[in-house]
């Protein structure tokens, strides 16, 4: 290394050092969503979950193709343990548990995702509005949540169903429209103090409209609460659907859902001696909820630039 020979003034116009940096930029010029997708892809747990979730949805969509038996037909012995023919055994009237599980995904996924989507939208919007505006608006919205939280759930559902008529969409909407108050209150609680932080003033000063402040500025800060609520909401909805189906709303009986598979197995004998009738449904519910949770977490981390 001949130091001395290079101790000459450099020509600054010819900026050697910056070349490398330009290269980095080239990778990043892509759209915002690409950036986020890229970050998400780096999170192994989230990616694995996403794949599982896609598989689950595929299974639901392709149910007629992949399920070994028709789901609602008696195809084997009653209450038979798993064997080569019926991988997960049969239920109380000889239907194939595996096939029912696959078809059940349709109902359970639609109901849970649908209803959670609905109540997250309502709960979040009202919660943001309530916490942000305060005063009369807040009082009014809070009183409405109180009204909603006071009624016996099942009674309301009974009435609604008698008015609308039972279907899986009714379950979805009913659960969606009744489930929002707790989330609304949670978000409102957070917003109450988030709105005192300077970045809200900054957003106001920038000229953000109130709705943008709510949805673009505050919303990202309550995302973690929404995610917690939503993932649990999904588990809840799957199980609640079962009890609603019992009340005559929701899926009509021969049709399977994960929830009603579990509920049908509600007996001491099944619990202690026929695990195949409840374990698979239980596990798939748990798995679905976990998967959704990890996807949610991963997404949030990617959006917020958190590294694991």
């Amino acid at each position, binding site marked *: 290394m001949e130091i001395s020979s290079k101790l000459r003034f450099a020509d600054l116009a010819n900026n050697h050092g910056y070349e490398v940096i330009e290269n980095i930029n080239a990778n990043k010029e892509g759209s915002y969503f690409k950036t986020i997708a890229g970050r998400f892809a780096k999170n192994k747990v989230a990616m694995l979950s996403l794949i599982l979730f896609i598989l689950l949805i595929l299974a639901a969509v392709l149910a007629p193709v992949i399920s070994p038996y028709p789901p609602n037909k*008696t195809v084997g012995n009653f209450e038979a343990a798993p064997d080569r023919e019926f991988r997960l055994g049969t239920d109380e009237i000889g239907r194939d548990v595996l096939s029912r599980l696959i078809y059940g995904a349709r109902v359970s996924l639609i109901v849970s995702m649908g209803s959670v989507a609905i109540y997250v939208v309502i709960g979040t919007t009202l919660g943001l509005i309530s916490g942000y505006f305060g005063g009369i608006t807040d009082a009014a919205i809070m009183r409405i949540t109180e009204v909603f939280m006071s009624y016996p759930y099942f009674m309301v559902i009974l009435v609604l169903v008698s008015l609308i008529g039972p279907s899986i969409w009714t379950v979805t909407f009913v659960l969606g429209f009744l489930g929002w108050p707790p989330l609304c209150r949670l978000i409102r609680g957070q917003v109450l103090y988030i709105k005192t932080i300077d970045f809200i003033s900054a957003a106001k000063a920038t000229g953000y409209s109130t709705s943008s402040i709510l949805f673009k500025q505050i919303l990202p800060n309550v995302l973690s609460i929404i995610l917690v609520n939503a993932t649990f909401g999904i588990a809840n909805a799957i199980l609640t659907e079962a009890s609603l189906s*019992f*009340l*005559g709303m929701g899926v009509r*009986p*021969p049709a399977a859902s994960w929830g009603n598979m579990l509920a049908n197995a509600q007996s001491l004998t099944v619990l202690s001696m026929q695990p195949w009738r409840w374990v698979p449904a239980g596990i798939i519910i748990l798995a679905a909820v976990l998967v959704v949770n990890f996807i949610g977490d991963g997404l949030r981390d990617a959006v917020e630039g958190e590294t694991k």
Partner: protein
Amino acid sequence: SGEATDKTVNSAAGNETSNESSASSDILYIGMTNAPASFNVINTADIAGRWVQRFMYDSLLTMPTTTTFEPGLADSFETEDDQNFTIKLNEKAVWSDGTPVTADDVVFTLNYIANPEVETARGTNIAMLEGTTAAGKLEEGLTEIPDLVAVDDKTVTLKTKNPVDPAYIKEFLGFELMMLPKHIVESIPAKEYGNSDACNNPTVTSGPYTFVQYQNGSYVELAANPDYYKGEPELKKVFIKIMNGTNLVTEFQSGGIHMAAGGGIGVVPVQDLDILRNDPNIQVDANPGFNSQFMLINNTKYNQKLRQALAYGINRQLIVDNLLKGEGEVLSSVYALASPYMNEDLKPIEYNPEKAKELLAESGFDTSQEIKLIVPIGNKVREQSANLIEQDLEAIGLKVTQTTLDFPTVMATVKTHDFDMCLMGFGYTVEPDMSTYYASTGSMNFGQINDAHLDELIEKGTSLTSFEERKAVYDEFQQYMQDNTFILGLYSDYQIAAKNKILNGGITSYWSGSLADIQNWNLNGAQ
């Protein structure tokens, strides 16, 4: 708890399966799945309530089997012309406050029921008496039932409108009605009896047990009546615990109950029955009963051929064998297995899908139509059977969709006749008259059955007074019902009587009469 086990030491029940609840050998624990709605003996429609009332209130007669009557408050209940009856009361019978049970009490109770001011569900039980309407209320202008006389302190005479089968009046009036204490009830305004303390926390009763307390939805506590005229019951206390079906099993196993109430208000779920059967301490009996499951058919929509097709097309034996685990039988017609009027020669229609298809074709029914099958929730076997029925019907070419509804909604639906088919269970009495269900004017004729010949048979059956004559009519009635399948009898499940073997006593083959000898029950049974 230590204290409880100390008490167990001397007791005959001191085995390791019985834990704290069976600690004392003179306390009986009963498991019941339906909470009693009320203790109003003249205005209770629910079976659970009526069953509990029987511990406290006595009727004139007891009915240990479907065909025998034994003395209750009445030593005798006689007639010579099937129209005038003389009732002699037990000399020793007293109310729990010491007042003797007299003829006045009987006359008062019957008149009370007939009183238009009084709200009652028991009108039908006295509607055979002269001077009453079909609803059992006093006819216009009367203030009390004519010919109902307290001849002396312990003798009552009464007269029916027409001659009746003595068994009928003995069951309806003698067995089903429980007597009220006049000296207590008369002081309460007629309209308020149902809401009164005397009704809801009864202290003056005449039965083997007296009321201690009812913890709403939890348990009823009863204490032996030391002055009971048949002798003080051996079991000094009874707790009737309210629980769900699955808990009956776990409570049996843990020793928390000695017996299940049975009879539709305390039934061990059939899928768990084997658990109890395998338990050496538990005795499980299955007897033919009066509860049966039916498929209501809307007669205005479906003709005879089609209804018959249903009977052939549904594999009812499969339901009995698999869902009921054999604890029941396929119904041949409408009468339950335990009924003495059951037509033994009538065999159920055999499952024959080919025949069903033929009949279906003959019926001219448009099979592209969707048939709505209503299934009330609450009975697991029935809900599962609906799935099999749906498959069977689809197999013969019908289109079926199920709708599950809660019971009140089902009732509202069938009452407006806005249904195609509906599964429903009925609990019949020994008395074979079924006009409420099947007569064209019957209040429970949900299927809108309207058949002149059937009406005629029903009419004829009620007008006769001897068992043999009536049986002949009702045999024909059953045959006719089967031929026309106005309603499709699915199955009649056996009455399951489960008890711990230490209990001497318990549910007998005729469930309603099981309590006839309760004063003799004890916990000294075999281990």
